C-alpha cells in the first residue's frame, strides 16, 4: 500500500516560503499567480492487511509525527500497489 500524504501550513500561520515563491514566479513573468502555499509531500509505503487498517495507521503516523497540529493540516490518499517502485 502506498500513502500519499500532503502536509500544509494552517491558513493562520505565516508562510514566508509561499510568499517568496510567488515573488520569484512574478519575477520570472508568472504574474498570473495570485497565491502560493508551500507544504510537504510524504510518500509512505507500508504493509497493511486492509485499506481500512492502513487508513488508521497512516492517520496515526500523521497525527503523531508527520504533521504538527499547532501549525499544520494534513490529508492523504491510499493507493494499492500495482507492482513497481514508488515514483
Amino acid at each position, binding site marked *: 500500500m502506498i500513502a500519499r500524504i500532503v502536509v500544509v501550513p494552517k491558513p*493562520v500561520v505565516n508562510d*514566508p516560503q509561499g510568499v517568496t515563491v510567488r515573488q520569484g514566479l512574478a519575477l520570472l513573468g508568472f504574474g498570473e499567480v495570485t497565491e502560493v502555499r508551500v507544504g*510537504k509531500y510524504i510518500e509512505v509505503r507500508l504493509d497493511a492487511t486492509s485499506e481500512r487498517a492502513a487508513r488508521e495507521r497512516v492517520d496515526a503516523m500523521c497525527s503523531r*509525527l508527520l504533521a504538527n497540529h*499547532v*501549525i499544520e493540516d494534513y490529508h492523504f490518499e491510499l493507493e494499492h500497489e500495482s507492482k513497481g517502485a514508488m515514483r
Partner: protein
Amino acid sequence: MKFGVVVFPGTWSDRDCGWVVDQVLGAHLQYLWHKDADLKGCDCIILPGGFAYGDYLRTGAIARFAPVMESIGEFADRGGLVWGICNGFQILCESGLLPGALIRNASLEYRCEWTNLVVERADLAFTSQCDEREVLRVPISHGEGSYFADPATLSRLEQNGQVVFRYCDVEGRVRPNSNPNGSLHNIAGIVNSRGNVLGMMPHPERCAEAELGGTDGLKLFRSVMHSAAQVLTA
C-alpha cells in the same frame, strides 16, 4: 547542583553547554544519552542546540519521542528545571511541554548573529541573577526560530507573563527591526505556567566567557546555580 545535558543524534551544543557548566561555572555535569530514560539525579536538565535527527521533517519532531523525553516530561511535572536552548526549545514545543511552535525564519535564511534580549521576567529560577528589563547580548544560530502560537495561546502567554525574553534593540526597545526571525511579539523565550520549563532560541552557552564576545549568558547559568542554593537552604 547537577546539570544534565541531553545528547540526541545530531545535537551539537551539548559540548558547549557541558563546557560552561563544568569549566566556567564549576558545577556538576552529567551527559544524558537520548536512549537512556534515567535522569541520574540531575537538578536541571538542559536540552541543547543542534539538529537532532537532522531536523528532518520538522525541527524536534523525531527527537521528542526519545526515551529520555518521557522522563523529562515526568521530571517537569514534578517541578524539575528543564531548559531548552535552540533545538531544545523546538523539541519542548514539539513534545507539548511548551505551547506553540517554531517555524522557518521570515527571511528564509539561517541566521547566526548577536541579538539583544530584554528580560521580561527576573523572578524565575533561570533569570534570578538578571534585572527585570535588563538587556542581554546573546547570539542566535538557527534557520527555524520564528515563534508561532495561535491568538488564544499567545494572549494567554502574555497575560500570564510567560514571555521571558524578547528581541529588542540595544536600549531594550522591542521593535520590528530588532526581530531577527519574524517571531510573533518578538518572542525569543517562554516559560511554562509553572515557571520551571524554559525554552529560548538564543544561545547563552556561547557568551559565558569574555573571549567569545560577551558574558551575559553566564548570568542565566548562575541564576540556575543560585536558585538551587536557595532551595537547599530553604
